[in-house]
């Protein structure tokens, strides 16, 4: 079933895009990530221009995170106070990201920067997750005794001035720390079309030292607003949001996300994390190959 994408200016097989959305949605429901880190590269492999891919993937992440936010909200798993600070940082970051995007586009380095960022981010996060989940699996099998880990924030965070109380998170820290974190993920959202959940969640746990019961809900809350802001930023600056592409992705991903969430309840969480770590590392190595392998096309054309 061929469908013409009015902004990407090419026709795609609609079923393939829906299936792609479904697969990513399944994973995002299972692992609690937005799945943007998979959508953008997969769309680029399929032949969608990188800018359109990043811009449209952001809106897919919005859709995928909505139902999650509602679910966590009902359970009281969202720290609104912390979320608001993160969102403010995220919106500022997405505006700054748009400026960076334009500069990189003009110098022709946007694709390389996207590639390098993906490799660095996914490689390091995937590596950490693999290390952590292998340990957790061994603990679960009784091969090792878990070391009780004290929850506390990073000493750098404690150094920041102007402390606030975040009751839900059980923290008394400077709002500058989550603001900077939000800003950083906002920049990434615009550049890569990712929600940034795979960075936010570990950072909230290990840098800020937030309580685990509010981490996922609050990160989804931030992702929802920042991806929405990134979509708006793309719509007004790069004009690369393809609403037809986004709708196709959403159709697949929202159904996939629901199925994935149900499946996740039946599987041991440490195995889920292990699977996610392997997947993240696979995407990272594919992107790495894309950077160092001699490309099919030495030349590229852009309109000026």
């Amino acid at each position, binding site marked *: 079933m061929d469908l013409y994408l009015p902004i990407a200016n090419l026709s795609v097989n609609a079923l393939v895009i829906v299936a792609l959305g479904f697969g990513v949605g399944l994973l995002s429901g299972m692992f609690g990530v937005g799945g943007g880190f998979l959508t953008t590269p997969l769309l680029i492999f399929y032949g969608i221009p990188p800018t359109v891919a990043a811009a449209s993937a952001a809106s897919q992440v919005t859709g995928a995170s909505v139902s999650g936010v509602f679910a966590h909200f009902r359970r009281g798993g969202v720290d609104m106070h912390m979320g608001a600070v993160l969102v403010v940082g995220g919106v500022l970051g997405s505006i700054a990201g748009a400026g960076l995007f334009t500069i990189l586009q003009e110098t022709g380095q946007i694709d390389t920067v996207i590639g390098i960022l993906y490799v660095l981010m996914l490689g390091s996060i995937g590596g950490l997750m693999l290390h952590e989940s292998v340990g957790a699996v061994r603990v679960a099998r009784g091969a090792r005794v878990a070391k009780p880990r004290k929850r506390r924030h990073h000493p750098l965070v404690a150094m920041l001035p102007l402390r606030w109380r975040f009751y839900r998170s059980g923290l008394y820290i400077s709002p500058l720390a989550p603001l900077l974190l939000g800003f950083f993920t906002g920049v990434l959202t615009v550049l890569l079309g990712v929600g940034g959940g795979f960075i936010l969640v570990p950072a909230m746990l290990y840098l800020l030292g937030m309580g685990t019961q509010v981490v996922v809900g609050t990160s989804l809350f931030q992702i929802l607003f920042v991806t929405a802001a990134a*979509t708006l930023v793309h719509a007004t600056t790069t004009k690369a*949001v393809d609403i037809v592409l986004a709708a196709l992705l959403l159709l697949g991903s929202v159904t996939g996300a629901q199925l994935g969430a149900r499946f996740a309840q039946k599987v041991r969480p440490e195995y889920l994390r292990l699977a996610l770590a392997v997947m993240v590392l696979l995407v990272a190595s594919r992107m790495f190959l894309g950077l160092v392998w001699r490309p099919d096309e030495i030349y590229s054309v852009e309109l000026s």
Partner: protein
Amino acid sequence: MKRVWLALAAAPLLMGQAQPVLVPDVSERSIEIAYSFTGAELLLFGAILYPDPPPARSGEGTDIVVVVKGPTQSVLVREKEKLAGIWVNSDSMRYRSAPSFYAVASSRPIQQLVDERTRAIYELGVSSLQLSPASSASPDVQARFDAGLVDLRTRGGLYYEAPRAVEITGGVLYRARLQIPARVPVGKFTAETFLIRDGRVLAAAVRPIDIRKSGFERFVARSAERHALIYGVTAVLLSVLLGWGAGALWRRF
């Protein structure tokens, strides 16, 4: 086809000239891009009118070349280079006008029909395109970038040659089919027809073809361009609604 017969009927009136005359036409004057657009096939046809009395060997040695060109674009071509183990864009070249689409069909390979100079004058053949660089560079650098641009667009199906795709019937009627891929940009296209004999272009004629988005696709593209903020808000609302709707629906089961 009706047009051709009309032209043939009018032929005696036109036969005062010594040179043959071309009466070309295309199957579609305008192509609309709608939701199911996967490309189009253009039929280019027409008649060759010979002066009266027709030369003895009117049929043989007459060749037809048909060129379909897309709107010209000003483009920037970048060249990748391996730097510290990573392929990054380094050199670039700017072109003021490069056709966004270029297809040439001929009754025989063009190299056999005309010499290099004629090919360059009429831009016959992918290697004879007159790309006008905006930045000055040495000839060999420019040739490298020209080749890169042509190669890239050839692989994308935007530039191609179809030798022997033009059929000439009875020395007077010709027809050719050319594929327009889905990736072409919208705008004014032209279909040029050349009548060639003994290595010389005897007659030429141009017909315009308009390719545009229609209906919903046109509406979307236009909204994205003119009402960017509303378009963005719509995209966000759509994703929130779909995400929330799916969640609400699933909780019922």
